[in-house]
């Protein structure tokens, strides 16, 4: 198959620790050059999965392939995987340059080639002028840049990153996130990125694999995961969501707390067809930014009179461009994001009507 030269495949892979599955029956394919993130709450098996790709953990069943070759029995040092660790793991006794050169020296590359490659990589990660610095002289973000250069130096077939940014502060995290993406795009290396931060995963990945309890919950592009979660867990974990539990009545009607909403997509929608087309207990999700204050800018929208929620503002958080408002409707709390600049400022206790379009409601 095309595009598998340096791809990664997991085929029905399981890993047991004691009597519990750390990873259970996971099948996943990462195409060559693809940036795939694995997200999930702690203990969901994402790190174990990464360790099985690198070879530090051996699957109890199933198969790992890199570049189409089965990795069973292939030791870590022969797999040619570049690893970036959460705590940087730079060698304290070596300078940035020596750290980057280490892998190439261990593999006996010619000296001139090592020097060129190390200098080039340090330049690429923006550490060209700190080549002679020891890890203790570098900030966390700088250390992680050097660690990235070190991992790429051996020209790995796959780049594996294990929570590389979680030890850094927010500002550095955000810039480094896009640096990693840029470097990955430029080098075209197949990348598996493990993180517990769904926002991070959504912002840099080609595809995201969501894990839960050792199993894959959903795999798709960031937009797919955001717009069409397959489960309440996915809906809740990815982004911020309102989950309304009620009953699907059939024919695009959803009953919740004595109200009936129109939920069937009226026009061509980016989301997949709702799963629960059979009537019965169901959940409906609607993103906070899809809840619009009714009466503010509804003139050019086709207001469906059904999809209006009347409630009271019980809290608000200023997020910069947006203000997140907690709206109490019949005792249940819904979140809505309103442009901070729009209209009169809302106060806690104000009555507020919220409207959502039928195509923005997602049925589970």
């Amino acid at each position: 198959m095309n595009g598998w030269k340096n791809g990664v495949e997991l085929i029905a892979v399981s890993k047991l620790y004691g009597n519990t599955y750390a990873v259970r029956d996971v099948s996943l394919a990462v195409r060559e050059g693809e940036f795939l993130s694995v997200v999930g709450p702690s203990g969901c098996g994402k790190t174990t999965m990464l360790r099985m790709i690198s070879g530090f953990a051996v699957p109890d069943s199933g198969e790992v392939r890199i570049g189409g070759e089965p990795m069973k029995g292939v030791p870590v040092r022969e797999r040619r995987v570049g690893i970036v660790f959460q705590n940087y793991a730079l060698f304290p006794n070596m300078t940035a340059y020596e750290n980057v050169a280490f892998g190439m020296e261990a593999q006996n590359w010619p000296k001139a080639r090592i020097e060129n490659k190390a200098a080039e990589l340090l330049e690429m990660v923006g550490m060209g002028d700190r080549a002679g610095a020891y890890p203790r002289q570098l900030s966390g973000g700088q250390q992680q840049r050097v660690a990235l250069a070190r991992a790429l130096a051996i020209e790995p077939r796959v780049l594996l990153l294990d929570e590389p940014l979680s030890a850094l502060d927010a500002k550095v995290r955000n810039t480094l996130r896009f640096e990693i993406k840029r470097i990955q795009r430029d080098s075209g290396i197949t990348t598996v990125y493990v993180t517990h931060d769904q926002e991070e995963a959504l912002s840099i990945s080609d595809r995201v694999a969501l894990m839960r309890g050792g199993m894959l919950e959903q795999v798709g592009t960031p937009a797919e995961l955001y717009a069409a979660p397959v489960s309440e867990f996915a809906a809740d974990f990815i982004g911020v969501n309102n989950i309304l539990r009620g009953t699907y009545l059939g024919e695009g009607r959803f009953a919740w707390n004595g109200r009936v909403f129109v939920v069937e997509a009226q026009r061509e929608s980016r989301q997949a067809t709702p799963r629960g087309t059979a009537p019965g207990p169901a959940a409906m999700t609607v993103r906070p930014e899809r809840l619009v204050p009714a009466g503010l800018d509804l003139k050019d929208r086709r207001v469906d009179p059904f999809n209006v929620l009347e409630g009271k503002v019980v809290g608000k958080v200023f997020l910069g461009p947006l203000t997140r408002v907690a709206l109490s409707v019949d005792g249940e709390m819904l979140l809505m994001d309103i442009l901070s600049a729009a209209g009169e400022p809302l106060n806690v206790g104000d009555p507020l009507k919220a409207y959502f379009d039928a195509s923005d409601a997602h049925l589970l």
Partner: protein
Amino acid sequence: MLRRAFTVCLILLYFSFVLAPILLMMIGSLGEKWFGTLLPTGFTLDWYAQLFRKAMYVRAMTMSLWIAALTVVIDGAISILTVYAVHVLGSRRIRAIFDFCLLLPIAIPPVVMGLGMIQAYNWKGFSLVGTWQLLLGAHIVYTLPFMMRPLMANIEMIRWSTLEEACVSLGASLWTTIRRVLIPNLLPGVVSGALMTFAMSLGEFQLAVMVTGSRSQTFPVVLYQAFYVSTGFACAATALLILTSLLSLVGLALLGRSFSEEIAGS
């Protein structure tokens, strides 16, 4: 004010208990006569001259330095390998057993250990008792915990398991990993362990007096005998041991520092 007075008192106490006896020895080694007076009278270097003229003392000092140096080297080699193995392979249980074993040489008095060694290595026709090799073995067992402990702390501080994973993923062999990453990063622990074990071995008396014979006596053993010769002579012998010990420790510390700088700079 009261706190300050208290601190001053403590410092004075420290001086009078720790430094004063050492100082008195130094002074005594230079005095001609020291009998019935608070401080010795006269000035002479003769005690030192006598000390260096007596083959027994010179040989004992050489033996002490030899055994202390070997103890440090062998302690270091054993400890690096052991600490590495326990850290990498060790489960919680193994680590607990290891910690307990480390306590044993500290918990068992040297006299007991010495008696045990005599019992264990003294058979008809074959006896290790009286050889310097047996004393070396005894000193290694006795000082090993003091090399292991700083190394154990060291390897945990550098988070070795992740560093080793980094090495392996970069394609480094075990030998390259140990030589270029493990040993250089354990050097601070080795240096502090070496200072401790060298000093312990050099000054150790109980094991030495039980295990050694006339040809393998170490300096502390002959020093004890020196007190039967004369006060001035004994003081000179003591002063020599203190000076040798201090100089060796300073030398070791400097060596360790230049070594780690060299590795860092290579």
